[in-house]
């Protein structure tokens, strides 16, 4: 009996001592060795995975290390592969952590507070930059800035320093299924004879309404894929769709940002949104629970003709019912003046920033890594071919265009001589503004609120949030 007790005590002591040691030892466990690049699983938080990567300090040689907190879960694996290639070539450890969808800001916040903070992170534009500007290293002398084809793709601070650099240009619009649209055109009484006839909102509405009326004959569930307001999908409307009235207002007023919007084009905004929710695959009362995957699968399985999204959606819809050659893109017409010339919405909300509070060695390592990514063949190949990005860098020549039919469709539109709609949603005053607008839109859609609330959220909310954010 006594012996067992003693053994027990010994075991417990050992267990406790082990626990203590393990707690302290974690920091230096894989020091200097190649850190395992980790990615967060889609639903996990980035925080846990960094622990696995091991908090190794800069190696004694002073070479520095790179820690990239990636924003795009779609390309998580490709980034890890690219980082491994770089480590193999140069021996510089590169850790890539991807924040789960929709949690980038909170992951960044907690990661930046750590001793081993990300050396490379992302902001989504001028508004995102506002909260992180004190952490942005001036990239003016960096190779990656020099490779940028135009200053339009850089975030310039008030003092003229280069705070962020866009690394991907994206385009969104109304993705449509050419085959289904042709099926419709071949029916009796179709209001258009070719997809090219859709040149304004009036035609778009006529077509959508007619398709909706004939949906059973066409074997589809609705003209538009569901306008879901789950967090995985609501940004398509509260941010991307709301960009259109904003774009036209800025255009009319000749401005690029404002402290108070007037909402000149909100009636047009209502028109297009009404179209989305009435000619839809589901009842408007179900919208609050519809996810981004729902809409993507409705489109990919050929249940809807139109689907508002961008070039990045290709990965989600490929290899399903819709063949690559059947993918087309239309501008989102809202019935504003001069829209015959309106193109797709093109811009960027992915800017690289280098953490100015990181050590000299790590900053240098990060800049070298970025240079390698945009200049070496392996890096360019990874970015363009593996990840499918269209980049704003002059080093990416013709052969580095991604094989993405949506990108090709977007290119076609530019060649037609249309004017691309800029991404003005990067000037929206805060995430809170978008959320308020999204909630108001949802309530309007499902019938528990009215359109006035949307107008209030859009106009009054802008002024209030701008005030709050800039004080």
């Amino acid at each position, binding site marked *: 009996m006594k012996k067992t007790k003693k053994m027990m005590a010994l075991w417990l002591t050992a267990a406790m001592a082990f626990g203590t040691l393990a707690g302290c030892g974690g920091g230096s466990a894989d020091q200097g060795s190649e850190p395992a690049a980790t990615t967060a699983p889609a639903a996990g938080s980035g925080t846990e995975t960094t622990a696995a990567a091991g908090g190794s300090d800069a190696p004694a040689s002073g070479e520095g290390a790179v820690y990239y907190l990636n924003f795009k879960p779609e390309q998580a694996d490709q980034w890890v592969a690219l980082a491994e290639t770089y480590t193999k070539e140069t021996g510089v450890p590169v850790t890539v952590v991807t924040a789960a969808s929709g949690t980038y*800001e*909170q992951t960044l916040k907690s990661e930046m507070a750590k001793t081993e903070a990300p050396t490379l992170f992302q902001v989504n534009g001028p508004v995102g930059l506002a*909260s992180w500007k*004190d952490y942005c290293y001036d990239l003016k002398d960096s190779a990656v800035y020099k490779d940028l084809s135009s200053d339009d793709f850089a975030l310039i601070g008030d003092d003229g320093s280069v705070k962020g650099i866009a690394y991907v240009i994206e385009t969104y619009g109304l993705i449509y299924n050419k085959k289904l649209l042709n099926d419709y055109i071949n029916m009796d009484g179709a209001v258009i004879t070719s997809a090219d006839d859709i040149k304004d909102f009036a035609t778009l509405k006529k077509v959508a309404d007619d398709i909706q009326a004939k949906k059973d004959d066409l074997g589809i569930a609705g003209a538009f894929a569901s306008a879901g307001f789950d967090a995985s999908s609501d940004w398509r409307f509260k941010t991307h769709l709301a960009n259109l009235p904003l774009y036209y207002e800025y255009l009319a007023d000749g401005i690029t940002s404002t402290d108070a919007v007037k909402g000149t084009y909100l009636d047009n905004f209502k028109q297009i949104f009404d179209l989305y929710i009435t000619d839809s695959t589901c009842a408007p009362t179900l919208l*609050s*629970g519809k996810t981004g995957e729902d809409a993507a699968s409705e489109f990919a399985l050929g249940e809807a003709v139109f689907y508002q999204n961008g070039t990045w959606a290709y990965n989600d819809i490929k290899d399903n019912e819709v063949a690559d050659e059947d993918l087309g893109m239309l501008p989102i017409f809202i019935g504003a003046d001069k829209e015959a010339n309106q193109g797709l919405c093109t811009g960027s909300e992915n800017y690289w920033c280098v953490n100015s509070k990181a050590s000299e060695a790590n900053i240098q390592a990060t800049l070298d890594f970025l240079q390698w990514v945009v200049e070496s063949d392996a890096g360019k190949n990874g970015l363009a071919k593996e990840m499918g990005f269209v980049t704003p860098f002059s080093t990416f020549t013709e052969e580095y265009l991604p094989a993405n039919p949506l990108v090709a469709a977007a290119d076609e539109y530019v060649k037609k001589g249309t004017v691309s709609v800029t991404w003005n949603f990067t000037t929206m005053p*805060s*995430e809170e503004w978008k959320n*308020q607008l999204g909630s*108001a839109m949802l309530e309007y859609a499902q019938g528990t609120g009215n359109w006035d609330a949307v107008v209030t959220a859009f106009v009054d909310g802008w002024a209030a949030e701008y005030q709050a954010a800039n004080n």
Partner: protein
Amino acid sequence: MDKAIKRYFPIFVLPTLLAFTMGFIAPFLVGVWLSFCKFTTINDATFIGFSNYTKILTDGTFVHALWYTSLFTIVSVIFINFFAFAIALLLTRKIKGTNLFRTVFFMPNLIGGIILGYVWSLLLNGILLQVERTLTYSSVYGFWGLVILMCWQQIGYMMIIYIAGIQNVPGDLVEAAKIDGATNWQILKNVTLPMVMPSITICTFLTLTNSFKLFDQNLALTNGEPSNMSELLALNIFSTFYGRAGWEGVGQAKAVVFFILVGIIAVTQNVLTRRKEIEQ
């Protein structure tokens, strides 16, 4: 032996004390300090006084979350304890398969809150689909969804505690009551209930604090939709801290207020039910 323990107690206490300080006291103090600061990352804060606390009131979501949480707490405490006690009574009768039933009722408690939330959102959305509604259609659906979810999860656990309490009621007391001609209802009211008062204290304490602090289920089931209307306090704090740039301090201040609220409620409840407990 006693002397040895006395002499060496700092050595034995030290590891735990260190862990407790690092894991609890230090973060708590830092948290309180941060509630008076403006910051983006927590190691880079500037002191701004009480303005975070005044902002709590201007942000209407906190007040809404407060009464929504209170209502939810009241409803779920009543439901969970009533059903848990009723089932416990049933399963202490001599009926066949009590052990099986107990296990089955207890099992939901072994599933994590996030998973439960997603599973139930699928289930409830599936049912609501019949009437073309979703859980996030309005906060009323979200509210009852949460109540159902919490009942399903917690009743089993509370039932186990009640069963233990009921089994501890001395058989001779019940027998004596029976001999005196007490009806079943009278036995329940005058013998069983007073004797299981300690279990009631524990169960109301657990359900009260659990419901008041509920987070993962709320996050997974509705995530506060629509328009933050189905947001409980903990989720409200979380979304203020992480969801709004520049509002980190306000989120922190809300957390401090939340701590005080939970403290007051828990202590009051404990005092109130303790009073009703009796010695055997």
